[in-house]
């Protein structure tokens, strides 16, 4: 009798195992649920706006959309950025992709070439609200076809602690020499002049680009004198102790913590940190300015932000309905403002919108000249060459010349 029971248990375990293996068609079913006779179509929206910050507003917007009509019902799913990117990669092979997906703008091209996103050129061209900033839209374009719509943008600027600057009698620096002089006065035993993120991933590259561009360098010519000048300057700040050595392990969020806690008098960061600073240091009096330019260079910044696209195998019509709504004239500005980003729409004049908001106004101005990264499906490898060079120089492993030539070699090898 015992044996029979045990046997039955084993057989049911085996059956359960096999049943589990068979159920992988979740993502594909959305394709079959065409709207017939006014039935609501269910679609999924994957994003990485964290629940405790921007995610709240995304959920509110989704609810608003769902309540405003009953043809399409959106379920929003939050995943941390790294995890979401991995899910896209897995989804390519397993077929489980959402209907609408969010992606960081420099990565968009890579995922398009993997087959994650669908060509929506037709939808876009027949859309009368299709009016976006060129720089933002360029990251959605791959081989002359459009694979997404810009969700929102941001850029980098200089945050400065008003109290610390006043106490040291320092004016807000606008050039590299002024920045160095300011750091000298601001750096003490417990305070560093500047905090940046030089971590070994995309964030590091993102943070480095404004400096690179300001000196007249570029990603195609990393071994040019101008490019090297930018890295030499930053290394100089590091050696003199104005930048903490630990910046090579800091994310931009870590840099914000340093600034908010008063351990750094200034930092390079973006408008999405406003809510973070509010929470960490609500009494901190700070201002924002453009990233100081090279003495003989121009003001420069880098374009960040996300794009949203329709994924392969999705219910395209329904997905487009949601997509065009949330990036449309009506909703885009509202959405972006709530999550600390700037609308990528060309018909939104951020300067007018933020005329009364001092801090956002500065970023609106910077945004005009912020350069986008790529677009290229090989951006991850280009990015790696850049942040590796930066890390090698910061840790003293290689000198600027060697590091930059190596980086240039790697980029060249990518054809």
């Amino acid at each position, binding site marked *: 009798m015992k044996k029979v029971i045990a*046997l039955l248990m084993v057989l049911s375990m085996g059956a359960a195992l096999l049943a589990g293996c068979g159920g992988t068609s979740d993502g594909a079913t959305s394709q079959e649920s065409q709207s017939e006779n006014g039935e609501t179509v269910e679609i999924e929206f994957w994003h990485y706006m964290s629940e405790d910050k921007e995610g709240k507003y995304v959920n509110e917007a989704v609810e608003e959309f769902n309540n405003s009509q009953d043809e399409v019902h959106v379920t929003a799913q939050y995943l941390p950025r790294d995890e979401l990117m991995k899910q896209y990669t897995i989804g390519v092979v397993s077929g489980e992709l959402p209907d609408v997906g969010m992606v960081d703008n420099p990565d968009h091209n890579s995922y398009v070439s993997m087959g994650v996103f669908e060509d929506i050129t037709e939808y876009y061209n027949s859309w009368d609200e299709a009016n976006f900033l060129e720089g933002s839209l360029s990251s959605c374009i791959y081989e002359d076809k459009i694979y997404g719509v810009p969700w929102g943008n941001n850029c980098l600027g200089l945050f400065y602690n008003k109290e610390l600057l006043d106490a040291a009698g320092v004016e807000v620096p606008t050039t590299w020499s002024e920045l160095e002089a300011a750091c000298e006065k601001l750096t003490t035993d417990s305070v560093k002049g500047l905090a940046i993120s030089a971590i070994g991933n995309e964030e590091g590259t993102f943070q480095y680009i404004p400096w690179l561009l300001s000196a007249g360098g570029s990603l195609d010519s990393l071994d040019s004198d101008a490019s090297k000048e930018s890295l030499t300057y930053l290394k100089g700040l590091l050696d003199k102790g104005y930048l903490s050595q630990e910046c090579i392990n800091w994310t931009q969020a870590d840099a914000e913590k340093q600034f908010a806690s008063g351990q750094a008098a200034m930092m390079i960061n973006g408008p999405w940190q406003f809510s973070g600073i509010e929470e960490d240091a609500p009494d901190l009096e700070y201002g924002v300015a453009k990233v100081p330019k090279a003495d003989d260079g121009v003001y420069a910044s880098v374009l960040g932000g996300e794009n949203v696209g329709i994924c392969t195998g999705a219910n395209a019509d329904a997905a487009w309905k949601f997509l065009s709504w949330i990036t449309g004239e009506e909703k885009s500005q509202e959405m972006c403002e709530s999550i600390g980003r700037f609308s990528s729409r060309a018909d939104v004049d951020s300067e007018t919108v933020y005329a009364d908001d001092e801090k956002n106004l500065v970023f609106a101005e910077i945004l005009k000249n912020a350069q986008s990264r790529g677009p290229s499906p090989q951006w991850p490898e280009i990015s790696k060459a850049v942040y590796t060079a930066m890390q090698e120089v910061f840790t003293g492993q290689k000198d600027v010349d060697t590091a930059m030539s190596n980086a240039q070699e790697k980029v060249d090898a990518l054809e």
Partner: protein
Amino acid sequence: MPGKGKGMNRVIGYIFIVPAVIYMLVLIGYPIIYNWIISFQDVTTTTLGSAVRDFIGFDNYKAVFSDSTFKKSIINTFIYTVGCLIIQFSIGFLMAIFFSKKFRFSQPIRGFIVISWMLPVTVTALVFKFMFAEGNGIVNAILTNLNIIKEPIGWLLKGNTAMLVLIIANSWVGIPFNMLLITNGLNNISNDIYESASIDGANTIQKFFRITVPLLKTTILSVLVLGFVLTFKVFDLVYVMTGGGPVDATEVLSTYSYKTSFQLFQFGQGAAAANILFVCLFIVALIYLRTISKDEVM
């Protein structure tokens, strides 16, 4: 009647192992075979989704072997593994002997020590990362207060010290494991042998090297090989604490494979790197099995 019973028993036996076999085949066998296949194919962003991919022979392996980061990661993995093994094994052994003396509270204290083995590795990684931070890390604070060092050390900012911190952290995790296994082995040596040795006039050192060590041979071998395999494929500790940095100073085979596949989207090369890791461990496992079976035959 007996014959029928035996046949039936065998069939029932096979049925009992069916779930486990299915599990192994699907979740372990299939991925390993798939990994071998894609390591010989050109799998990047453009070909990931396609059903047909070009066979490019050993190109992925050649690319991987000519990558300086890969060579560094192999060296790092070995340094890390050997370093961890030496520390974990010696201290684990000492602690096993120490706690075998059965003094008061030896059981609860031993239980307490095992906590480090049970903590999620991610937690351990983060805690050690904060402890060894240059600015506000507690380690630097203690060392400077005791005047052992004058200036705070950037533990995770330089390659050598970062590797050291990783080894220390992993040793903290692994010592209880070693200790428990060796304790088990020690318990299997009956006290009679020690007693008769004492009667024959053996001192502690002779007892240790002539009795304890030889009788523990299989245990020691298992501990070392198991430790090697588990340590060699480290991922979470390195990924969370240093991410392979600074630059590639603490890059190990597993993080290299992961980054190549999921950050650079070079899936074929990542698969090749993972297979090399597999081969290294396979060889170690083979050596272990050979050594064990030789003993058994004896």
